[in-house]
């Protein structure tokens, strides 16, 4: 859990971050979203005291960081940098082992943990264990960067644009792997990005920042459908439709979908937890077909393109 209260940081008396507060529950992912210079990275770095706040307080797992030495809680907080910044004079294994070593783990345990992480992050324990960072590709380096952050099993993970330096294909592949890894599931994560897609993809909570202040924080749907200001709606404008499709579950549309169907050539069964975007994709790839959606109560509804669009429009009208 991370609780941040009234954090402020001034540079030359001009606030870079002013009066920011938020709480992230255990296991939640929070994305700090905004343009360059909005204060999102400064906010992130104040959490592990890489930047010391001028005022305000941070609690990690219910303990105020003021009561701890930064070196102590940094070891319990994984950190991933945009520039990756592996230690060039350490081997891959030594890079991963940095925090466990600082914590004084025994050698065997460190070795096992390194091998385990290499495996999990789809690196080769044989090939990559004792080579140096410069011998790896950018994508592989960031996998090592993630492994280094995860090595000592921190409960909190801070990520500063972790995919910023990677090409789109490598980025997608790493994100896919991360989504599947249990290492990430129970972690409280703060991720900084300027990529709206990424924010909605990875964030349980999105915190949209501008000029050092939080403009709106909430779950993705809240930001999309209940923008707090013109700035928020303006920020998502270009990708609005796509984001709406991607962030609306069929469950939300369920009551407006028809219970009967006229013609059936091909029935595809989908879960109500699936997103509208995925539903469209399935309809498109399968040719002339119809979706069957079953909710937890056992009721069954049917949908084609038209029905989905109609339900979505009605849904939007009700929440607006």
């Amino acid at each position, binding site marked *: 859990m991370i609780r941040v209260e009234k954090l402020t940081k001034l540079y030359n008396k001009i606030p870079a971050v002013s009066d920011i507060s938020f709480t992230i529950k255990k296991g939640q992912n929070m994305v700090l979203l905004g343009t360059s210079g909005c204060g999102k990275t400064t906010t992130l770095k104040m959490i592990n005291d890489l930047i010391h706040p001028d005022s305000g307080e941070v609690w990690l797992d219910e303990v105020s960081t003021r009561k701890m030495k930064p070196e102590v*809680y940094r070891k319990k*907080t994984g*950190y991933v940098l945009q520039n990756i910044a592996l230690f060039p004079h350490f081997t891959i294994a030594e890079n991963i082992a940095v*925090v466990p070593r600082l914590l004084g783990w025994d050698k065997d345990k460190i070795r096992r943990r390194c091998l385990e992480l290499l495996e999990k992050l789809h690196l080769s324990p044989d090939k990559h264990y004792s080579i140096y960072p410069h011998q790896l590709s950018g994508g592989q380096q960031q996998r090592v960067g993630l492994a280094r952050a995860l090595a000592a099993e921190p409960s909190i993970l801070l990520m500063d644009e972790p995919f910023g330096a990677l090409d789109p294909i490598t980025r997608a592949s790493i994100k896919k792997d991360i989504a599947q890894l249990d290492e990430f599931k129970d972690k409280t994560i703060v991720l900084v990005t300027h990529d709206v897609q990424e924010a909605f993809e990875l964030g349980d909570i999105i915190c949209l920042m501008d000029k050092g202040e939080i403009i709106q924080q909430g779950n993705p749907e809240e930001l999309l459908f209940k923008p707090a200001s013109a700035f928020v709606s303006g920020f998502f404008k270009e990708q609005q439709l796509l984001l709406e499709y991607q962030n609306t579950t069929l469950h939300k549309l369920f009551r407006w979908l028809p219970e009967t169907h006229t013609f059936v050539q091909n029935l595809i069964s989908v879960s109500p937890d699936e997103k509208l975007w995925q539903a469209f994709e399935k309809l498109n790839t399968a040719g002339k077909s119809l979706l069957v959606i079953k909710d937890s109560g056992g009721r069954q509804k049917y949908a084609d393109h038209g029905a989905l669009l109609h339900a979505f429009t009605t849904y939007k009208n009700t929440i607006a």
Partner: protein
Amino acid sequence: MEQQNLWQFMTQQHDKLIQQTLEHIGLTFISLFLALLIALPLGIWIARKPTASPFILGISGVLQTIPSIALLGFMIPLLGIGWLPAITALFLYALLPIIRNTYTGITGIDPNIREAAVAMGMNHWQVLWKIELPLAFPVIMAGIRTATVINVGVATLAAYIAAGGLGEFIFGGIALNNVNMILAGAIPSALLAILLDFLLSLVQHIDLKKLRFALWLIPLICIAAASSYFFSGTKDLKLKAGFTPEFMGRTDGDLGLKSIYNLDIKPVVISDAVMYKAAFDKKLDVISGYGTDGRLKAYNLIILKDDKKIFPPYYAAPLVRNEALIKFPELEGVLNLLAGRINDSTMTDLNYRVDYLHQSPQQVAKDFLVKAKLWKEPLPAGSQTVRIGSKIFGEQYILASMYGMLIRGNTRLNVSSKTGLGGTQICFNALKNNEIDFYPEYTGTGLLVLLHPSKQTLNRVTKSNDSTYDFVKKEFGKTFQMKWLKPIGFNNTYALMMRRQQSSELQIQSISDLKRYLDH
């Protein structure tokens, strides 16, 4: 004199060579070690304190720009002579390369890497030891290598202030025009620089995992090498002697003291510039010097009587190219105006004014000429110019000025002075190569340094002052087509000197007394 090759010289002098090499290594490494102790932490500190870095780098940069011989000069009033000022000067020279490279090495590290290290939970020391020093290590080592090579070079100058090292051979060789001697000092010191640089380059490429090992290794090497200085020879005698490099290698110097007087006084080698003061300050008890040196008067020193006559007479007289005498017929007469006019005590006094009271040689020359009623207003000059040379010390400057004034006052010749032509050899070569027309030279120097007579001849011609002058005059006319004009009067011979007070306390009046005193 029999020609000796370099190898023969080095074999013959191997004791000295080994001792000087050890001293040289010792001086280099003691100062390097001290510099490491100061410069590494300082470099690390300014890398973290950007506000202090221009200041610290500025100061060490300024130290670097002080000419090494001047820096040694500054040290003497503060620290005297010997190893202390030498090591201090070397230490100061080694600071800049190490501080700057440590600073550059650390500040050159990608800030993201440092941030990653801090974010992983490393404290300041861990960031320094695990990240900054290993990454900056090659750059820091490059600085240490630079400092080492600089120190090997500058350490040759330690011979000027009685701290030993290979400079003893180099400066002795230069003063005596002995190429073998120069090379016997220069080649080992060059090899030493190359070798040390090579060894440190091996350390530089050491596996970074063994960094701790390397960081321990360097000071250990330093200390081990430094200790060689103190094993290199103990110089403990009842009286402490300091001789110039030139005196050390001359038959009418230390060699003569050994062979004729049987006096082995184990002298340290020291520059003429600081030797007298060192005797006055009781850092030295017996020094070699010149009979008419002004500092004799300034520092209240007395000359020990040369009762076995090893120092031949050094009568000063103008040494002129024959061609110049033909080209300027009036020259000889004008130069001879000074003949027999200056005796020992007058010359000592004139030197005293220049060397100690810091009056200008021109002023002192003019005052003397006016008093001697030799001075005349300069005449309008024609187109012909006489070129006067002089060696690089006060007495020669005074004489050159006097001759210039006499020529201007009595002829319509122009005068150009080439003063500061270094030692005997440089001056003499300038005369031989028609770069100057005349300079004041000493009969003893002409005899021993330029003519190299056989032992029999030497014994024969040094019997009296006149026989030396006659022999030199005859030989120079024959061999070099140069003429010795009439002697000026004073005898600036080599001499051993002591403080007046100590000499009377110990009742040492002559070199034989000194020998007797040391034997008891």
